[in-house]
């Protein structure tokens, strides 16, 4: 299977008054055509920044190094014009807060049409008609009337559907959904996930679902990549990772979920590290119950173990010892 989005050794540094902050520290990531990839991690783990960097949407204080290829086109260091041709056409993004993601002064239909006309030769009329179709695709009733309304006339869930319609307008190869349900009511969350799944099934777009909700990942995703402190710690098929997590952090995440038969949740001790001064070696070692001295010296890369890949130097040991968690 070919990868439509290939990220290699991506590093993102922000210049802050307190010094340089490396938010992403060498991430490798592949998105294959048509799959749903879950990207999981706590806030500040660099999962959103990774994809904002890929889209070229980071502020000027950020420096991006490494490689991002969409459909074979290299984006890091590419001229802005080329970036623009990729954004919205090959890869598009849905953001966390639908309430503020739409421009309040333009009609919803016009905002979708703008996306269409940015990449396709289309008359205004054709674009408007297509915008109505897209609204219908994401399940908005009376799409023709709704297209003429302004964002403030839509509820949060409806707005997120509009955002999805905008993102899907040009049938991109990759759709990045950055915590698309976090800001919504629980009942609406399920609907939005359904919309994403349906759109994905209909168009064959690959979807990257950035989330910290493992339940969502289990339900929706094919593969999952776990991030911690700006690095990947584990990746593999969902069933493999959920069935036998090999990295202590992944295991911690899973343990902190409500589970049948378990009386109590076990949260991970401690807090995410300060990214201005991340710990040496494996960043998780300061919270890791299995940390040994060697953890402080090596910065482990992802290495295959069984069906998945893990960035823990004790992965195989721990996998053996902790089987059947």
């Amino acid at each position, binding site marked *: 299977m070919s990868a439509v989005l290939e990220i290699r050794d991506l590093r993102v540094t922000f210049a802050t008054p307190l010094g340089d902050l490396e938010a992403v520290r060498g991430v490798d990531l592949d998105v294959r055509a048509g799959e749903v990839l879950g990207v999981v991690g706590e806030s500040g783990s660099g999962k959103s920044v990774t994809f904002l960097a890929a889209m070229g949407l980071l502020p000027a204080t950020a420096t991006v190094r490494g490689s991002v290829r969409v459909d074979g086109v290299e984006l890091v260091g590419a001229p802005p014009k080329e970036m*623009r041709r990729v954004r919205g056409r090959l890869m598009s993004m849905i953001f966390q807060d639908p309430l503020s*993601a739409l*421009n309040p002064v333009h009609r919803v239909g016009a905002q979708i049409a703008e996306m269409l006309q940015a990449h396709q030769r289309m008359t205004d009329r054709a674009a408007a008609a297509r915008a109505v179709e897209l609204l219908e695709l994401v399940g908005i009733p009376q799409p023709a009337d709704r297209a003429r309304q*302004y964002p403030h006339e839509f509820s949060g869930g409806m707005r997120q559907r509009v955002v999805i319609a905008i993102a899907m307008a040009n049938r991109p190869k990759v759709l990045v959904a950055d915590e698309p349900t976090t800001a919504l009511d629980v009942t609406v969350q399920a609907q939005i996930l359904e919309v994403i799944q349906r759109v994905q099934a209909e168009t064959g777009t690959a979807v990257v679902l950035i989330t910290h909700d493992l339940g969502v990942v289990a339900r929706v995703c094919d593969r999952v990549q776990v991030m911690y402190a700006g690095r990947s710690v584990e990746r593999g098929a969902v069933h493999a990772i959920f069935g036998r997590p090999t990295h202590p952090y992944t295991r911690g995440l899973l343990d902190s979920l409500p589970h049948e038969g378990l009386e109590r949740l076990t949260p991970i001790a401690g807090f995410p590290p300060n990214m201005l001064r991340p710990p040496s070696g494996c960043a998780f070692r300061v919270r890791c119950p299995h940390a040994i001295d060697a953890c402080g010296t090596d910065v482990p890369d992802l290495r295959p173990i069984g069906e998945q890949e893990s960035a823990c130097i004790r992965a195989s040991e721990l996998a053996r010892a902790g089987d059947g968690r």
Partner: protein
Amino acid sequence: MLRYVLRRVLWAIPTLLFITFLVYVALRTGTDPVKSYLRINPRATKAKIAQYIEVNGLDPNYVRGYWSWLRNFVTGNWPRSIKGSREVWPQLKDALANSLRLGAAATVVGIAVGIFVGVYAALKPGGRRDVAVNTSAFIGISIPPYVSAIILQLLFAVYWSRWFGDTLFPTSGVYPPGQVGFDPWLMAKHMVLPTLVVAIQVIAVYARYMRSSLLDVLSSDFMRTARSKGISERRVLVRHGMRNALIPVVTIAALDVGAIVGGLIITENVFSYPGMGVYFLSAFAQGDFPLLMPWMVIIVASVLLFNLVADIAYAWLDPRIRLG
């Protein structure tokens, strides 16, 4: 929309009446029109005084007095000025025309330049040009208009001719003394310095408004959405950024007439420009009630008018404002 506008217009009328009543009371108390009249016409007969009181609506009872003043005002039965006993409207009309010309020139130049400069600064916040714009705007607002007017006057009235042997920009009036007839070129030359003084203030204020408004908008989420569409940076800035950033600026522009008129009054006086400001200050110094009241009505009405314009512009530009 129409109903909203109508309702606001209807509301403006009682407001206008109420404020002019307050002005009437304040002026009557503060300038004592009868005493001013007697000071200039010390030998006025009893009948003359009674007629003056009658036509100006100076009944001892303020409410009744205001009412008769209002009736005379609305029916066009305006009293003559105390000083020189001249008709008020011709003087007021000329002053208004001169001021409108000056005010419009300064406002158009000021807002256009101010918005441009503000955007220019906001595009690279913290950069060198941002700092330059910010600092000069800051100096612009801090320095009172008469200070810059006096410095400009000194420069152009005295030193320019001393150094270069010719007057570049005249520093007083609309025409040189003795000029008859209409001469737009001369008029424009006379307007340059006063316009500059008023415009400096307007530029400074709008550069700052525009800058902060655009910075607010630039950091909002929908700008990221717009950028993620892959449209040109220019289109992102104009269609998404400016369109939103201008909403508060337009509103404030309309609300700011009071400040602009204030700047005009001061500037006109320094440059002896025969507009509303010179008219007001000389009338006020004389306590010339018949001259002052119509002037006040015009000022109050224009402030209310522009408030109305601000509200309507706001509602028109921002679909989130519900009109009911």
